């Protein structure tokens, strides 16, 4: 008796599940191509903005100062990565968050999936504080859906005092390291950046979805595993500081954390080129506080706030006013802060891979399943 009931019960559940899934399609997907012009009903007056941010990514006094200036309060939920942020935004549904931070390739995907609110530039006068190049970013030309917050490149971070016999200037220094470096190099563990060195070394685009090119890059990276210490996307710079690794793939801003501990930690963008990444502020679709969220973005664009970002998070910011306020001694300590926007724009921005994502995932799985 219990067994028969059990089977019927489970079938019922599956059916219910499928029905619910079909009905709730809007809440679990980001919608499909094209942003819909209509907005969710908007709340007026002072509100509480729900903000999804990376840890310690904003000046500490932002809540209180923003409240003083506009009367709105903010509630911060932290996230540690873009992937988690997007999963939370998708799963929690429209209206759950008013502001989120996303890095450029993810912004690209969200825009195309209609997941972001279009920005009203008349509400964002402080956009004029940014460099002209900040509105020439390929994933969102003219910053229609996102506002750049910090930007930089990916390259090689290394110990200049411990590396004596090798000139570090190419991705090959990580993929086919000299005997001095062998076994003491790492690559970043995140998919897009994991494949970056091989793709660039082979002269391909970082956004390629051509299976043949991806296969070549995968093969090259698999071969590189023999001389690789490991894949590390979080603590690669502390491996440098401790000497466990001598040269690592890293983001320029993160490399600065290493430099801050040990001035011998240096950064270089390899000759084959790299990517340009941009951390941006966006308003997820369905927010009921779009105008207040725009006020918040405008508020953050004030020079002193982005100057804080540069000084404390050690990332370059696209805010021209902020960068010009920086102390020259600070710039000397962290040379990659001096890279100009024009130089940055020479690098290739990562874009969402769309339908090519599956082929790309397969390539990464190949690399990681050895």
């Amino acid at each position, binding site marked *: 008796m219990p067994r028969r009931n059990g089977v019927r019960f489970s079938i019922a559940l599956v059916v219910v599940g499928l029905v619910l899934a079909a009905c709730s399609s809007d809440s*679990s997907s980001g919608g499909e191509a094209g942003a819909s012009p209509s907005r969710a009903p908007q709340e007026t007056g002072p509100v509480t903005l729900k903000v999804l941010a990376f840890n310690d990514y904003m000046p500490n006094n932002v809540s209180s100062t923003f409240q003083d200036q506009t009367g709105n309060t903010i509630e911060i939920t*932290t996230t540690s990565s873009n992937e988690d942020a997007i999963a939370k935004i998708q799963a929690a*549904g429209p209206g*759950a968050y008013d502001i989120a931070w996303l890095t450029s390739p993810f912004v690209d995907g969200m825009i195309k999936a209609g997941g972001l609110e279009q920005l009203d530039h008349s509400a964002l006068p402080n956009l004029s504080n940014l460099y002209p190049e900040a509105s020439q970013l390929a994933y969102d030309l003219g910053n229609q859906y996102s506002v750049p917050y910090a930007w930089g490149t990916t390259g090689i971070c290394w110990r200049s005092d411990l590396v004596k016999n090798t000139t570090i200037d190419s991705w090959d220094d990580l993929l086919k390291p000299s005997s001095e470096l062998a076994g003491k190099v790492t690559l970043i563990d995140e998919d897009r950046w994991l494949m970056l060195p091989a793709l660039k070394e082979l002269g391909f685009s970082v956004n390629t979805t051509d299976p043949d090119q991806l296969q070549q890059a995968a093969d090259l990276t698999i071969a590189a595993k023999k001389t690789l210490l490991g894949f590390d996307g*979080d603590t690669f710079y*502390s491996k440098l500081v401790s000497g466990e690794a001598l040269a690592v793939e890293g983001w320029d801003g993160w490399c600065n954390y290493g430099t801050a501990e040990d001035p011998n930690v240096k950064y270089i963008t390899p000759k084959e080129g790299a990517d340009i990444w941009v951390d941006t502020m966006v308003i997820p679709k369905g927010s009921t506080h779009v105008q207040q969220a725009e006020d918040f973005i405008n508020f953050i664009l004030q020079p002193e706030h982005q100057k804080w970002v540069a000084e404390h998070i050690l990332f370059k910011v696209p805010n021209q006013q902020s960068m010009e306020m920086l102390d020259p001694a600070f710039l000397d300590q962290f040379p990659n802060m001096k890279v100009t926007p024009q130089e940055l724009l020479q690098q290739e921005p990562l874009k969402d891979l769309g339908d090519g994502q599956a082929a790309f995932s397969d390539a990464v799985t190949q690399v990681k399943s050895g």
Partner: protein
Amino acid sequence: MRDRGPGGGRLLRLNMGIVFAFLYTPLVVLVILSFNQSKYASLWGGFSTKWYGVLAHDSAVIRSIGTTFFIAAAATVLSIVIGLPLAFGLERWRRNAALDSASYFPLLIPDIVTAIGLLSFFAAIKFPLGVRSIVIAHSVWGIAFATAIIRTRLRGFDRSIEEASLDLGVKEIPTFFKVTLPVIWPGIIAAALVVFTLSVDEFVIAYFTAGQTVTFPIQIYGMIRFGITPEINAAATILLCVTMLSIATALILGGRRNRGVPEEAVA
């Protein structure tokens, strides 16, 4: 049950020693590093207690520990309350392999799927994310653990004392409380301990269902970017000490507690 004899006994002791050495060496490292002058775990910079000072002022970390304990306690109670009757029911139908496997089902599902599933679900029914959602999320696997452990006490448990009680005219419910419960009580305690401990340590599901709430593992995960500073080690060390103290206290006080029916009478 007593030692099998000198030969077997020595081997057993050696094994136990290895197990404890294995379990505790990393903890020793962890505690020592909380006194590291240098920020980096791999470089010993000299002895310093400054990180404890940093910790004392870090209200975020302290609050996260309190939150974590509260959630663990609530999840444990919920898991036991639902898991205990389930254990009884499962023991009755234990020939049913499907039912048996079904009770392990929550444990089979990868954390990430449960996590995202619950987040979507809570959002769909507009259930507020926070302490309550984490407690519910933890109870889902907590029940499975509690049941499995309580069942180990129900198996091999001499039913004749229950039978005797019922024969004497005592109804089911008083029999349960006066006769059965004292005997399976250690199983319940064990289950509570396991669920509580696992809840304190649980990260993935809490991370997604927490909303703005921050538990200790979530707090630490957010701090990883800057490396495991000795401050984190200090927090872990204090947690350990507090736990050891409470356990010691509980043992001293609980030693008096009568386990109900003495073991010999049951055997």
